[in-house]
């Protein structure tokens, strides 16, 4: 595979893609940076923002809002930007901070190398904050995001979600946010994920499917899944702890778990861990084969069950 990628949209040279929890009454702020201070790929960035509505429809891409020299850092409250743009958030929107090298300003397509994209991705974490100031809730998660759902970078599109963080109590729910993103605003591939809630003994508790339109974020509520299966009280009585095992065979989804106190608004928030955290050389054909076997052994035997669409989308 060549290191050179042609016809690349520079808006996705160093993106930060994040859910905006307006549907859950949280403000969303981001801290982004130009973390690559030195070396051949260090460069000045121009920062602009894009917003997508709850259905994944592109709403706007702003003009340049900030200039970032190497080492610069900036915090942006999306509420301020949306207010200036006179956009009232409805449901849960999706945002992108585009950091575009100054040399690419005004260009629609450019030639880049994988090496330079990866150098920028690996040099910095972006912080996404969810805020309910009157309740003193400001929490968040840091992550890096490389190119998603682009055949030039990803030979296959699969996502394995294994998150032992499904915590449900009388006042707590756990949501799994799933982001379907790519490297072009024209991206239009719908993503699907099948998932099971599994108890600590490894028993399947409840099954669901979720469809994530392009450029959108969908939330799987463990509480809603249990309610729909009349299992909420039983699950809580048994400890209220479990794991979501999910598999998408058509998309690289970005999962973020959020354990939310429904009274105080507090959120525990973290991304899940990609397979290379467990086996450092994981990937390639071995990954494709293992996911296929996992599907056959864990998911396919229950294909006859009635599927529950577990989407929790606030108006």
């Amino acid at each position, binding site marked *: 595979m060549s290191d050179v990628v042609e016809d690349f949209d520079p808006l996705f040279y160093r993106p930060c893609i994040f859910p905006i929890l307006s549907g859950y009454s949280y403000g969303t702020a981001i801290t982004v940076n130009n973390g690559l201070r030195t070396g051949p790929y260090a460069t000045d960035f121009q920062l602009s923002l894009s917003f997508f509505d709850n259905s994944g429809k592109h709403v706007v891409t702003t003009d340049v809002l900030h200039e970032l020299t190497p080492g610069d850092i900036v915090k942006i409250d999306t509420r301020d930007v949306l207010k200036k743009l006179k956009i009232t958030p409805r449901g849960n929107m999706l945002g992108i901070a585009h950091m575009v090298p100054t040399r690419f300003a005004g260009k629609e397509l450019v030639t880049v190398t994988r090496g330079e994209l990866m150098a920028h991705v690996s040099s910095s974490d972006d*912080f996404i904050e969810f805020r309910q100031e009157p309740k003193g809730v*400001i929490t968040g998660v840091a992550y890096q995001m490389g190119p998603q759902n682009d055949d030039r970078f990803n030979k296959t599109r699969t996502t394995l979600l294994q998150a032992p963080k499904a915590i449900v109590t009388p006042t707590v729910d756990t949501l799994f946010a799933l982001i379907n993103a790519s490297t072009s605003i024209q991206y239009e591939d719908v993503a699907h994920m099948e998932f099971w809630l599994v108890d600590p003994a490894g028993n399947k508790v409840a099954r669901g499917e979720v469809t994530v339109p392009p450029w959108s974020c969908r939330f799987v509520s463990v509480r809603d899944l249990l309610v729909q299966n009349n299992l909420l009280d039983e699950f809580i009585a048994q400890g209220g702890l479990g794991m979501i095992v999910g598999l998408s065979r058509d998309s690289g989804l970005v999962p973020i778990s959020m354990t939310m106190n429904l009274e105080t608004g507090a959120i525990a928030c973290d991304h899940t861990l990609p397979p290379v955290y467990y086996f450092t050389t994981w990937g390639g054909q071995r990954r494709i084969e293992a996911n296929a076997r996992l599907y056959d052994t864990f998911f396919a035997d229950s294909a006859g069950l009635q599927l529950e669409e577990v989407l929790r989308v606030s108006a």
Partner: protein
Amino acid sequence: MSALSTLMKNPVAQGSYRKLLESGFVPRRAFAHYFMNTAGIRSRVHLQNYYSMFFPDDLTPVDARVWLYDSRGSLLAHRTFSIPAFGQLYLEIRDIAGEDLDSEGMIVVDVVPPKATKHNLKTLPNIQALTVQTPFWVSYRDDDDNYMYVHSIEVYRGRVFGAVWPVNQMLARAPQAREPWESWRLLDVNLLDELQVVVMNHSATTGTTRVKVISPDGGELWSHEVTLNSRESRRVVVPTEKIEEWRKTGTHESVRVALSSILSDNGKPYVLLRYGDGPLSMHHG
């Protein structure tokens, strides 16, 4: 360069080592995380049998070995737990130590691969570069069920499992980079009530670092030096008077956390925050 490192460059030695790897003797590193079971916070380990996901043809239980160290690096408890296929472990501190200790420190988890799977590790790509790791989460909650959780971000560098003894030893003695580190998160001073930074020494040797609060452009506003032996941890509380001072002078709307050096390759701190009299929140550096 050690004699062993030199030997590993020899083609015959490399071939023999590859055969050992293919027999299942692959290096395995245990992630080490922070637990806090004090000051109104309770911690719980969240860990799954991930072998079920990656080797779905070998659905067997695995053993998870758990070590609990207090903030001075002293061993509090060591226990082994079995996790069923596709199962999970949710361990309170009392499950590990036998009592609900008022303590905080380092928790280390090593998941032992099942016998059948160990021999199948050779099916993974590029086995000579393979390391098996055991990441997990710790959740933290207060009495009102306000949760925080963070994934482990660094392995305990001083011990390696899984490979043959000399390789384990060589990897466990690898020097650590100990680079300067600055957080990429801007913390709002105006609403900030509490700021605490948890520093841990994941390496095998003693280290000294300065915990710093810096301005967005890197200027030092406050610092505190800590020296930590292997496996020690320290929760450094930034004085509330300093936060109040930054707020009153209004010179900095936001601050960042930094360390003069992390004590191991990825030994970034955990940061605890309280805003506007609300619940605590935590993130990794």
